[in-house]
């Protein structure tokens, strides 16, 4: 992968922050967009703008065609068929869609949902809502001291009562890559369905929902070089048949009378209202960007950066790394705390050096609490990051130490 060439595709990386070259290491929060994505959106807006599936005029037909092409591209990227890919705002909305339209309808008292303490709040709270509404029980799998999912605890808590296993592909806080294939196999043995929160996994690890046989997969476009406000949720055909609609209104109906309505077949049932067409087009273009580079090469590149950053960060005295030390089971996310210095102060001083990182609990409060932390600092990588960026991070951290010495 030619990183210099990749960098040229991202106009924002030319920005200077406080007079220094921007080093963007907050990719787990949101990624940057390449000009190909920006251009695809612009092209649609300038040449084909119309509502989809409504009009018979040329523009509407073009827009509908482009929108459905985008669906096909995005679906194929995760191994799904177009008839199983629903466009949503983001992973959060995708998980909520499954929770409300499938969970509320298919779970009952005495049954259980199994999730993990490593989840982002968006893969925890919707299940709290379902459990509270239907009287089901939420089981939460533990994490080991190394920041790896405790599979023994998973086995203990998985039972005939488990109706759904909801697990992330890759932790946004520790970077831990969970063995989702094995988890699906284990869940199948007790007849449980599986939802994978792919917000970090789809673009950094890669996934094939058909190969691993997942029921649901949710992800966000903006974390994978696409626009904000668009994401996808894959729902297996058989599960779709067990579901009512999520939001209701225009576009999701077959027939409407005064008192009752019939839902549309297929994915339209779950896409009420005018969809984010330009967002979907941008997301499809972002998918193509990954495909051109190749998911394996992306993973290799990020693995290299993770390995290098772990090696460099341990050299800083007083720095405690969070999560596994093995880059084989860790995506491009490195989180840490520095003794006596709050994560916000670390992030602020890094910002003064042009290095953008995240500080706080990264929407994983239960995990932070379990690891004995209030907050942490997180650097997360993507295709446009280099070893030089890691060096700038380390230099910045040395400055943090100087300021607070």
């Amino acid at each position: 992968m030619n990183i210099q060439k990749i960098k040229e595709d991202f106009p924002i990386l030319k920005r200077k922050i406080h007079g220094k070259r921007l080093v963007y290491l907050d990719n787990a929060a949101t990624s940057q967009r390449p000009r190909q994505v920006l251009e695809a959106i612009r092209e649609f807006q300038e040449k084909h703008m119309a509502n989809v599936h409504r009009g018979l005029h040329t523009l509407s037909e073009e827009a509908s065609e482009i929108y459905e092409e985008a669906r096909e591209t995005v679906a194929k990227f995760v191994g799904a068929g177009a008839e199983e890919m629903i466009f949503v705002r983001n992973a959060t909305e995708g998980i909520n869609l499954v929770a409300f339209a499938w969970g509320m309808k298919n779970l009952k008292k005495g049954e259980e949902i199994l999730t993990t303490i490593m989840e982002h709040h968006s893969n925890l709270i919707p299940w709290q809502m379902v459990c509270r509404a239907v009287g089901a029980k939420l089981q939460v799998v533990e994490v080991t001291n190394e920041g790896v999912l405790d599979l023994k605890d998973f086995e203990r808590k998985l039972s005939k009562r488990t109706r759904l296993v909801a697990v992330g592909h890759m932790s946004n806080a520790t970077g831990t890559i969970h063995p989702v294939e094995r988890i699906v196999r284990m869940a199948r043995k007790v007849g449980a369905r599986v939802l994978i929160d792919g917000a970090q996994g789809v673009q950094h690890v890669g996934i094939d929902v058909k190969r691993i046989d997942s029921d649901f997969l949710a992800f966000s476009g903006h974390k994978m070089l696409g626009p904000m406000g668009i994401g996808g949720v894959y729902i297996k055909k058989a599960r779709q048949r067990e579901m009512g609609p999520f939001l209701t209104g225009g576009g999701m109906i077959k027939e409407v009378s005064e008192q009752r309505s019939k839902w549309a077949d297929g994915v339209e049932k779950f896409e009420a209202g005018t969809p984010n067409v330009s967002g979907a087009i941008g997301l499809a273009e972002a998918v193509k960007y990954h495909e051109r580079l190749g998911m394996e090469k992306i993973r290799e590149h990020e693995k290299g950066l993770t390995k290098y950053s772990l090696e460099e960060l341990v050299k800083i005295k007083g720095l405690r790394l969070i999560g596994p030390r093995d880059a084989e089971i860790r995506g491009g996310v490195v989180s840490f705390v520095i003794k006596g210095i709050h994560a916000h102060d670390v992030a602020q001083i890094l910002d003064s050096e042009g290095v953008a990182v995240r500080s706080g609990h990264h929407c994983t409060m239960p995990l932070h609490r379990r690891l004995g932390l209030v907050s942490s600092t997180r650097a997360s990588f993507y295709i446009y990051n280099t070893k030089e960026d890691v060096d700038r991070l380390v230099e910045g951290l040395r400055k943090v130490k100087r300021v607070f010495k």
Partner: protein
Amino acid sequence: MDLYREEILDHFKNPRNFGVVKKTKLRAKETNASCGDVMEMSLRIKKGKVEEIRFQAEGCAISIAAGSMLTEMVKGEKVAEVKGLGEEEMMKRLGIKVSSGRRKCATLGLVVCQKAIRKVRK
């Protein structure tokens, strides 16, 4: 660097009036959910003035330094004046340009202090 000027770091490393005022009902606690900062203030009033004020906190340098400075600001002041203290006065005392994202850190002490002092019986 401006934000972490010497005085701020000094208050962070050696917070003034750190601890708890005993035998008082005038105490309050607040957290900044987004960063996990926790601050507790307790104070004693005598003849309408703040006789003693102490704070305890876990948090970033800005919130601790601001809390520490605030205790110095309000000690010996009239209750009414402390109640009327505004965010701007706090910012002025800090003497640094705080970004919008850190404003909550800088004003946490003020919020907790005023929450405690509102418990004074009229």
